[in-house]
């Protein structure tokens, strides 16, 4: 059993740390928090210019590309630095799906825009009426009867919830129902829509954690067939490819590390009313040590899917195991920090550049959503119960 860091990966980590130091400004971080839009075009395009999005991830039917461990490190370092990376994650995810499933048209027309950083994508899976039960998507795509030989056109009607970054996106990957008569998972078709098609509108949805997301409406949107991704009624196969990316390496699960570091820094100076420092309180020290243990466990579980992918194998339930543990541990840590900070833990960030305070309240607001997005804890447990423990399917 080897836990030595791979030299190539550590070299890459150092290069990403340098990139972040050179390109990420406090203003970018402040703007992301103020607007809730965790995407910054200047930062994103500078990163794209390094070629990292075009290089993509090796494996998954792709011969060349970055070591999955390097991409894990990319998002990990972004997270630790507080860099806005949602646009990057979505762009890499959709680029990966296009590479595996896209047509020549997608590869020629869209892929270069993701690779260069010109465009990012939003994810249109969830609907007002379907979240965890993503295959229950009701957004309708109907083929408009046309003349033989013409390119078929689809008429899309419906709405998608939690379409984060749709207000910045050039494209949205869209799960639609094309055949309501088929079984739930079989009547679905995936599209990749340019956001400038007439009939697409969105509204901001503000969240407790400060993220801005959106609800997106599709009203009689005419979609030429070339924007279809994968087979007609084969949308679930595309979805499986997309979910494999989402539960893999494109994210940051080590939020507890940043939280603990900031809290300890603060606790070294923060004084109680009796003049003692918070960091000297044994009760505080015990709780902080517990968070540190959770962080170590999280780090090992979080890197495991990337490590498996790095060896050319396919992770199975390891992503679910990591996501479940990491998000629940982050919530424990955020709760504990808020309690230890006492009333000061209730104070919100003021968004002033360089302002350090408010991170406890921010974490406490941010942590709950991590047990929801990308598959709720209950969905992860179902997945683990069924596919790891071999228990009967219970839904």
């Amino acid at each position, binding site marked *: *059993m080897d*836990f030595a860091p791979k030299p190539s990966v550590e070299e890459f980590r150092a290069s990403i740390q340098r990139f972040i130091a050179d390109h990420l400004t406090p203003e970018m971080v402040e703007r992301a928090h103020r607007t809730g839009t965790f995407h910054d075009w200047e930062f994103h395009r500078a990163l794209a210019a390094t070629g990292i999005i075009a290089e993509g991830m090796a494996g998954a039917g792709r011969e060349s590309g970055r070591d999955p461990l390097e991409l894990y490190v990319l998002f990990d370092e972004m997270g630790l630095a507080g860099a806005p990376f949602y646009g990057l994650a979505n762009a890499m995810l959709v680029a990966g799906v296009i590479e595996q499933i896209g047509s020549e048209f997608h590869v020629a027309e869209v892929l270069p825009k993701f690779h260069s950083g010109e465009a990012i994508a939003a994810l249109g899976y969830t609907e007002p009426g379907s979240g965890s039960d993503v295959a229950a998507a009701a957004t309708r795509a109907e083929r408009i009867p046309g003349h033989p030989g013409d390119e078929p056109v689809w008429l899309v009607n419906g709405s998608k919830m939690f379409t984060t970054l749709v207000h910045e996106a050039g494209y949205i990957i869209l799960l639609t129902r094309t055949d309501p008569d088929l079984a739930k998972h079989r009547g679905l078709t995936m599209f990749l829509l340019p956001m400038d098609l007439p009939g697409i509108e969105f509204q901001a949805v503000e969240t407790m954690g400060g993220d801005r997301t959106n609800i997106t409406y599709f009203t009689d949107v005419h979609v030429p067939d070339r924007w279809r991704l994968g087979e007609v009624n084969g949308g679930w196969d595309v979805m499986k490819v997309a979910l494999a990316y989402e539960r893999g390496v494109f994210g940051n699960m080590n939020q507890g590390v940043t939280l603990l570091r900031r809290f300890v820094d603060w606790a070294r100076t923060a004084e109680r009313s009796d003049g003692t420092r918070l960091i*000297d*309180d044994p009760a505080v020290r015990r709780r902080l040590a517990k968070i*540190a243990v959770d962080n*170590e466990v999280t780090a090992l579980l979080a890197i495991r899917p990337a490590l498996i992918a790095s060896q050319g194998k396919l992770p199975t339930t390891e992503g679910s195991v990591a996501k479940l543990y990491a998000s629940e541990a982050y919530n424990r840590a955020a709760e504990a920090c808020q309690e230890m900070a006492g009333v000061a833990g209730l104070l919100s960030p003021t968004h002033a550049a360089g302002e350090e305070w408010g991170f406890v309240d921010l974490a406490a607001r941010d942590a709950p959503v991590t047990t929801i997005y990308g598959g709720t804890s*209950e969905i992860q447990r179902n997945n683990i119960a*069924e596919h790891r*423990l071999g228990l009967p399917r219970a839904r």
Partner: protein
Amino acid sequence: MEPTEDQKTVRDAFARFFADRCPINVVRDAEPLGHSPALWARLRETGAPGMGVDEKLGGGGATAIDLLLLMQEAGKVLAPVPLAEHLAATRTLARTAAGRDAAWFGDAVEGDIIAVPALHPAVDGTARLVPGGAVADVVVALDGDELVAVRSDAPMTAPPNHACAPLADRGVRNGDRIVLADGPDAEALSARMRADWQLATAGALAGLSARALEIGIAYTQERRQFDRPIAAFQAVQQGLADLVGPIDGTTLLAARAAWADDSGDTAEAARLASMAFLACADVARNTTYRSLHYHGGYGVTLEYDIQLYFRRARGWPLVLGDPDDEYLRLADRLFGPAAPEVTR
């Protein structure tokens, strides 16, 4: 993170050994003392007792990772032998000239005699409730500013206790008493012995948790209520699924601690051993609690094996004392010592 082929060979060999030699009736028959001399004799034949000692000193020269894999397999079957204790004590003896020169050192490496560590300094010449102390020939303990190895007769009786563990008070000023080190060296060696014991115990607890989960899964698949196996109920499934990440993650943490030890980074190894110990203890407690719970009323009957796992999950780690005290020691490592005047 995956075991190498050699490590798998070690693991599989001990898995077979314990499956053959330590079915659950061996654990039951060893109660209440918690020691099976017959199993120890068999284990002696495998070379396991001396595995942690350098080959030049007659030991097996095993890596810390191999020792961890051995302990995981021992933990899975609740092997009623003081193996974690013996490994920690013999490694400590081997680190000192006086230990290596002891007339009985070779016997300890062979496993002909059993050596165990006192986890707390002796008070007035007595080390209290030493793990394995009821059956050990040699106790390694801090006595004042000396680290001593004392050979005396094993009492072969233990106060009745939660885990049926062979605990006993042992005098450290009578018998054949060797001073291994004194002053700061004694402190440092004792701390390292404790870290070795913590890591070995973490391994045993990780194995215990893995098996306790398997037992829980097997029972819920077999037990039918409301016309179906209770494993078909989502409430039960989710509770079992919750245990996987903690078991996987803390088992990896223990392996990482062992890897740090093998890499020669003693301070990092000690930090990680403390973390792995705390985490594996926490997970073992929770896993055995849940697994027992899903047995319903049968879980608390002595007829079912899960209660054996439940009691050891608590009993093995608690001999070190309140985990909160260990969390405080860990905090000192992580954040530096607290200002003394406000230590409460």
